[in-house]
């Protein structure tokens, strides 16, 4: 009898669900996977001209008007135009190549904010702790000590060595800011075009790895909070230059939130917490916008001649200095 009433109730619930589905717009229906998780799948870009921190010129002004936004975008596009030369300067060398190779984007974020940082409210990275400042200064000094003349590959950062493009979380950079999300029951996978790394994120409630296991992209665990995918990442490593996010320690905790707001947009937010580095946690909000085109493989080791060329150049400079 008991079982029977459960069946009756489920049948009624199923009928109600069918009625409900029929009345829900098509777009909202497709925002769930067949197994009922919110659907984040697709190819996305986090490319934006909006700076991480609010520039001094916009102090106290978290948002631009439509007109101000268009003027600001025009100015940023001009500043980023790699076809404008400054011959004979270090900058001219480091810009490296024509504008056609660069793809920084044309627009700031749609809500016209003046910083990607939404917390603290001033749009700035919070002050560093004394310990964080000391660590950052030591890292700068180490980098300045070899300058353009690294003694060994280990002097160069993880990015130049094709280990990871950059530590998590990833911000918008000069090109290839693309991500493909694929889901299965129990997992969310995020393929990053740079440098074709895939984060395979369990969303089945399992605990983090033991703290002894350290990984370039940390250890991510996801969970659903309503329509939001919340991913907590720990277990970072500081084994190589550039392997932590900005001057953080390997104990930084990253919490990312992905929520699909419409067919074309994921609201992506992250909070970084590292009391050994910053005096308080801070949060970034930036859209991931749908991309119709393809992702392309970025096989970084395939032709990383630049690394060998840089080391050869450093040895040539040493030899020239000895002969003087």
């Amino acid at each position, binding site marked *: 009898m008991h079982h029977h009433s459960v069946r009756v109730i489920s049948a009624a619930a199923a009928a109600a669900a069918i009625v409900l589905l029929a009345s829900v717009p098509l777009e909202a229906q497709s925002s769930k996977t067949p197994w009922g998780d919110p659907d984040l799948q697709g190819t996305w870009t986090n490319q934006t001209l909006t700076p991480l921190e609010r520039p001094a010129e916009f102090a106290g002004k978290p948002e631009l008007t439509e007109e101000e936004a268009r003027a600001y975008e025009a*100015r*940023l596009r*001009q*500043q*980023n*135009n*790699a*076809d*404008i*030369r*400054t*011959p*004979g*300067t*270090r*900058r*001219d*060398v*480091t*810009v*490296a*190549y*024509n504008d*056609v*190779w*660069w*793809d920084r984007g044309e627009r700031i974020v749609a809500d016209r904010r003046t910083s990607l940082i939404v917390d603290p409210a001033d749009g700035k990275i919070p002050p560093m702790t004394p310990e964080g400042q000391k660590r950052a200064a030591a890292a700068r000094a180490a980098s300045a000590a070899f300058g*353009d*003349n*690294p003694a060994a590959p280990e002097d*160069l950062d993880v*990015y*130049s060595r*094709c280990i990871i493009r950059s530590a998590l979380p990833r911000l918008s*950079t*000069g*090109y*290839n800011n693309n991500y493909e999300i694929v889901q299965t029951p129990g997992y969310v996978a995020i393929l990053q*075009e740079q*440098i074709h790394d895939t984060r395979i994120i369990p969303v089945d409630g399992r605990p983090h790895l033991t703290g002894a296991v350290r990984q370039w992209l940390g250890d991510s665990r996801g969970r659903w909070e309503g329509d939001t995918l919340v991913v907590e990442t720990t277990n970072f490593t500081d084994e190589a230059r550039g392997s932590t996010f900005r001057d953080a320690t390997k104990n930084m905790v990253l919490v990312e939130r992905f929520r699909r707001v419409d067919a074309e947009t994921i609201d992506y937010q992250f909070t970084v917490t590292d009391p050994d580095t910053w005096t308080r946690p801070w949060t970034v909000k930036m859209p991931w916008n749908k*991309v*119709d*085109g*393809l992702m*392309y493989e*970025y*096989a*970084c080791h*395939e*032709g*990383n*001649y*630049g690394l060998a*060329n*840089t080391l050869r*150049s*450093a*040895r*040539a*400079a040493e030899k020239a200095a000895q002969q003087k």
Partner: protein
Amino acid sequence: MKRILIAAIAMFALGVTPVPGSAHHSFAGEFDVEKPIKLQGTITRVEWINPHAWIHIDVKRPDGTVESWAIEGGTPNTLYRRGITRESIKAGMVINVDGYLARDGSKKANGRDLTLPDGRKLFLSGAGANEQPGR
């Protein structure tokens, strides 16, 4: 040209420092700011590889000898996304290179500015170069 000049003047007037690019690695470790170089050569092959494409050219010296040079570019992914493929840039094309010489003294340079002999930008002159599928 005039538009760029005006823009450059405006930038100085505003005290705006252009934001330097950040390539995959620092080109200042690989190429010498003190040694700008201009070359004209015929493309022999293009390595469409990451993290940076390399364009190989043969350069005819005034004495008639031919030198092979390798010119470093950026990520080919960006070009593909703009509809520029290996069909756009082929062996036999003549290009001008305005860049900086490799610090190790080898016959390499960065393609800081790549143009066709008539002055047009190399890749922007290719078929479909201004199309950006998917953007």
